[in-house]
């Protein structure tokens, strides 16, 4: 039952994210996630990446795997490196199936989380499949139930976009031009 439910939520999320030009993947293990991300970044010609270590990336040896694939991994000093990094990898707190939305809600309002997901042209977001919530309303109440509202809560739905010139949709303004989401079971 639980699996059927999460498959349904995942499918919903994927459809919504793809509708707003995001890429969506799902893997079983942390190790696979690292490998998949490396392959995707390689494909896109990425040579260096800002990696904000999280629980999944550590378990999946992301840094090692990426280095092995000849991608330069930068995992500190983010204020200096993110303006020029070709991609950023972060782990996010929740995802909303109804909208294809990612939610950043680190308890400490980690500034590096924001730098690695906003300044880079490609943002790779990693998330545990169990963190997938069905709706906006449930997400709001989940955040509300936290011991306190995190200082920074960011919803991200697809890459950054604008229609400010002649109402023509253009992807990639101040934020990332590409958003890749990897669910880890």
């Amino acid at each position, binding site marked *: 039952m639980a699996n059927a439910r999460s498959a349904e939520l995942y499918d919903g999320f994927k459809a919504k994210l793809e509708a707003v030009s995001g890429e969506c993947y799902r893997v079983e293990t942390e190790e696979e996630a690292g490998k998949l991300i490396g392959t995707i970044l390689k494909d896109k010609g990425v040579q260096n990446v800002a990696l904000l270590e999280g629980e999944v990336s550590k378990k999946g040896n992301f840094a090692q795997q990426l280095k092995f694939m000849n991608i330069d991994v930068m995992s500190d000093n983010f*204020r200096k490196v993110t303006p020029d990094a070709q991609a950023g990898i972060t782990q996010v707190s929740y995802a909303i199936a109804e909208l294809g939305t990612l939610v950043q809600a680190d308890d400490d309002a980690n500034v590096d989380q*924001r730098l690695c997901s906003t300044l880079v042209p490609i943002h790779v977001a990693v998330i545990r499949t169990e963190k997938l919530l069905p709706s*906006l309303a449930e997400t709001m109440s989940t955040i509300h139930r936290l011991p306190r*509202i995190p*200082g920074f809560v960011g919803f991200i739905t697809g890459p950054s976009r604008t229609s*400010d*010139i002649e109402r023509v949709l*253009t992807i990639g303004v101040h*934020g*990332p031009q590409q958003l890749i989401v990897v669910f880890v079971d």
Partner: protein
Amino acid sequence: MADKQFKKKISDALDNNVLRGALGRFGDTYITAREKAYEGYDFPSIRENIVKVKSYAASHLDEMIDQFEKAATARGAKVFRAATGEDVKKYISELAKRQGVKHIVKSKSMASEEILLNKALMAEGIDVQETDLGEWILQLAGQHPSHMVMPAIHMTKEEVADIFSGHLQRLSQPVITELVKTARVELRKKFLEADMGISGANMAIAETGTLMMVTNEGNARLTSTLPRVHVFLVGIEKLVPKFEDATHILQALPRSATAQQITSYVTMVTGPTPAYYEDGSVKDKEFHIILMDNGRRKMYNDPKFKKTFQCIRCASCLNVCPAFQLVGGHVYGHIYTGGIGTILTNFLNSENDAKNPQNLCLQCGKCAEVCPGNLDIPEMILELRNRMGEKQGLPFTQKFALDVVSNRRLFHSLLRVASKAQKPFTKGQPVIRHLPLFLSGMTEKKSLPAVADIPFRDVFKTIKQDVKKPKGKIAFYSGCLIDFVYPRIGEGVISALNEKGYEVVFPEGQSCCGAPATYMGDRTNARKLAIMNIEALNAESVDYVVSACPTCTHALKDSFQELVEDDPGLAARAAELSRKSFDFSKLLSDLGGLEPGGDGVPLKVTYHDSCHLKRKMGVYAEQRKLLSDTAGVELIEMKESDRCCGFAGSYSIKFPELSEPILERKLNNIEATRAKVVAVDCPGCLMQISGGLDKRNPNIKVVHTAELLFEKRKKNSKKN
């Protein structure tokens, strides 16, 4: 009345093909895109939720502000309550000085536009950078936003390229993706060097002290992440009681604003967050929140305008406005544009600044239909118009015409004279210009009907009503157009109601419903007419009062009650009249419709919804059923059937240059159906549309539902 300079602005806007193109394209796609975005969601219940939380905040404003301040302060924010724009400018200037700020980046804040904040800060020698792409383009061009959500919608890529070329001293190509890339590169430098960020917020949560921003470009995220000082400038109307109340607004704002399910980013900030300082250390930033009044409280304390607090600034009212779509935002003259903008300008700038733009409202009510905050913007604009009329008086010619109309004997004898005097001219130079203003629109693309030889009040006496054992009595309120221009509609009404077993009476003392006075801001004459009609119709003596003009019906049902509410005796009579008044199609349908009938001769009919009938009375299915049930009638729906035809009473005289293109769009939609007849339920729409078709496509006839039913069935009875 609109002044010359204002008229000039309108004609410039209409001549601007770029503007017309961009606005037109957006307006054409917006309505369907919005509907798609709401698919699977119940808009009325989302709206109800928004109204609930926002109206609560509005009526507990002090409590909300106190709560917000307490919660935000507890999280380390410094909260400042600013009474005026000057207070805001002073506060931010001093803060910038204290903090040694040299470079400011701003993400979108209409509140800062409202008080011309940039100018003040730049005068202090601070580099201020707008970072929203549209806002940045306008900043470089030295312009104001023309739309709350899409500030630079009036510009082309070529213009943007020119502006960029000038600013960067190198050639920019008019390719949108390249222009966006340029903006990213240029503004990225600004983000990285900024020491202060200023942003607006879409919501301020009283319970938690949280500020929420709904954006697409990512500039709000950068503004709230990079600089070491952050100032939120927030109008007090952004307050929302509880954290989870924001859900409702998040459900509506992106869908209504840009037809998105959700924007790329929603950013929620509660208290200071860590930031990098120049020395590389990470510390909490200097964090300020300014809650700005600047005229808002005055607006919320006014019972007629209290609901403006429920506005979530989605600008959907602009997107569906036929007038806005033609002229764009700059014609409105100030920071806030469109219908809601006119109201905001009146309170936040000055009444004088709202004087011209309030005239642009057609009173079609489309904005009220789509408003997620459930604001009746046209009613509020009308209230402004009335207050201005009372304060400043109307121009002499308008006032004179309205005084004539409110003197029934004089008005009616003038109309009778007109019907004789027009004889030699009826085609070409209609003497209908002797009619009150609302009938005298002289335009090139429209011909006008003649005043009928015999007014309905005289025809009525010759009609034989053959009702055996009448079920009851109905008073017919004809209104001026049916009485003096289209008496045949009246015959149709009586025939149908007779068939339902009712005797119809025509109270002689009835006169104009007062709508022209109401819509021109002359409450005195409107009230005079309300009393005259309440007494003449004597609702106590009949079962129903029927009108076949929705504008009149709206007056009978709603306006009269408001106009006499201060007089308990009259108010009771007005309430009785309101209860018993129905528009023709609604009443006929409520009485069970007509017996199966019709001549069976195939006739393609399309239907145009009157603004008042559909949106004020919610009647749109009834008349369609009456028509389709008539043998021979094939009903073909036109595109945008409920879009205003551009008549709007005196509007077509005040702004023929706007009324005409609005009518043209209607005519295009009509022609596309290939129907032979356009059915309408409003004599005003009938006059407008048939005037246009007469010049352009005289083969298509415009007929009132009552008359069409009458004609199609009369032939039938002859055959039998």
